């Protein structure tokens, strides 16, 4: 698990880390929407510069961002092949025997790749600079206006934060069960179909049993400490929007407006 960088929080001391999670989530959403307007290369260039500025400000290394993108590379290459096979418009760029790669295939792929890269950059910018718990708090607050139409924003946030809290424990548990079953001769890498099915069962059943046990213990612990879903409670962590947060939102909104302008009016 040590090598996965996508979606991971990196504890650094930067102005971006200190921003209000609500502002960051909203800004991310605005810029993500902006990407989907066909604003052309100029538009993408502007977004790229803006996001790069945020990354530099957050003290994240571009190497880290690059690592987050790597897992996507294979997918993008696959996409390129499909585009080459399907898109036969524009001018042929390269001809190998009967087969030709057309300029539109390259252009289309590049469009998608650039958008995807931008999306990864933007989301990484959020997840790497915001503690998972602060993210949940932000989501809770942003969802709370929807409480009137029955969205249980607090319960959703509690659910996410508990899931986040127990992910490392569940990973440990999974590894322990894998080792225990390997000690009983389970071979996860090879074997006949029936053996494979048994191998998977021998992991899943114990994992479920222990997850249920955990859930029961946790429910007891929460109840014993006075937690009752739906009842009023105070909150320890309070979020405060400051001037820098509003600035971020303003910047994101301007970026979106700019893209709309480039796409439809320029």
């Amino acid at each position, binding site marked *: 698990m040590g090598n996965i960088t996508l979606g991971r929080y990196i504890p650094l001391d930067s102005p971006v880390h200190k921003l209000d999670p609500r502002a960051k989530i909203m800004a991310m959403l605005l810029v993500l929407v902006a990407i989907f307007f066909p604003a052309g290369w100029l538009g993408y260039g502007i977004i790229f510069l803006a996001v790069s500025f945020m990354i530099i400000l957050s003290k994240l290394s571009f190497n880290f961002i690059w690592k987050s993108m790597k897992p996507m590379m294979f997918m993008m290459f696959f996409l390129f092949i499909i585009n080459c096979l399907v898109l036969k418009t524009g001018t042929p760029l390269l001809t190998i025997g009967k087969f030709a790669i057309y300029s539109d295939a390259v252009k289309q792929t590049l469009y998608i790749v650039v958008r995807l890269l931008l999306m990864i950059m933007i989301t990484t910018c959020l997840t790497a600079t915001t*503690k*998972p*718990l602060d993210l949940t708090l932000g989501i809770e607050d942003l969802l709370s206006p929807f409480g009137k139409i029955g969205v249980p924003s607090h319960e959703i946030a509690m659910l996410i*934060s*508990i899931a*986040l*809290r127990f992910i*490392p*424990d569940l990973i440990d548990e999974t590894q322990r069960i894998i080792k225990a079953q390997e000690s009983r001769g389970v071979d996860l890498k090879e074997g006949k179909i029936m053996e494979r099915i048994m191998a998977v069962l021998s992991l899943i059943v114990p994992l479920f049993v222990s997850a249920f*046990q*955990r859930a029961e*213990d*946790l429910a*007891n*612990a*929460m*109840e*014993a*400490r*006075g*937690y*009752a879903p739906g009842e*009023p*409670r*105070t*909150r*320890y*962590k*309070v979020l405060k929007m400051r001037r820098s947060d509003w600035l971020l939102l303003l910047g994101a909104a301007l970026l979106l407006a700019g893209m709309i302008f480039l796409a439809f009016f320029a």
Partner: protein
Amino acid sequence: MGIIEVKNLSFSYDEEDNAVDDVSFSVEEGSYTTIIGHNGSGKSTVAKLIAGLLEKKSGTIVIDSMELNEENLKKIRNRVGIVFQNPDNQFIGSTVRDDIAFGLENHCVPQNEMDGIIEEFASRVRMTDYLNSEPTRLSGGQKQRVAIAGVLAMGPKILIFDEATSMLDPQGKDEIKKVINQIHRKSGLTILSITHDIEEVTSGDYVIAMNDGKIAMTGTPEEIFANEKKLKEIKLDLPFSVKLQKELVKKGLKLEKSLTMEGLVEQLCRLNSNM
């Protein structure tokens, strides 16, 4: 009248056998009571019933002069804190600070008072240096100390430990036992500890021994340990020093009853120097 009054309490998980069968006892305010018994004897079930986590089949539970029922549940929860066995599964917050805050949030403590309370109770269990630590960075004993702080912060009158040391290593067990003793001495809380640790029983005031869902014996540790035959019957053992003392008395030494190793050593010393 005790702070906990249990009368004719029964409970069953499956409608058939009673896991707790017609149990009655009383716990005095400010006392340190231990409940012992082998696995499956019903002792943890009793703890969960008192904490209002399970619903009784019949009988009554009165806590601090209030009957435990739907109506009083919330008030009683404020008076009874419980620390469970598994250190990981009761750590709810993402850091020590957040975990202690969890109970305060539920009790609607105003936000601006929380930090003070959190720091006070963290220092009582000596976890001040770890306030911002995540649970994966803590030992089992440390996690249990946080659980104790989280429960104490809600201001209970009764503290239940449901085998709170059984999953810890010797260092962890030692830490927790010290913290429990300290809380008992300093704050005068009523302690109810469900335990397998026969040595812990000697530090309590009163013992309830359970077997097959029923109460087998009650009394002071001295009284309980005097009845070795009955203890054996319900598959429980004596502490080492008590066993040795009995052996010595059998071999003809005259000794006063003493539960601890130190007490026994002191007596033997006196005998040895009585030249």
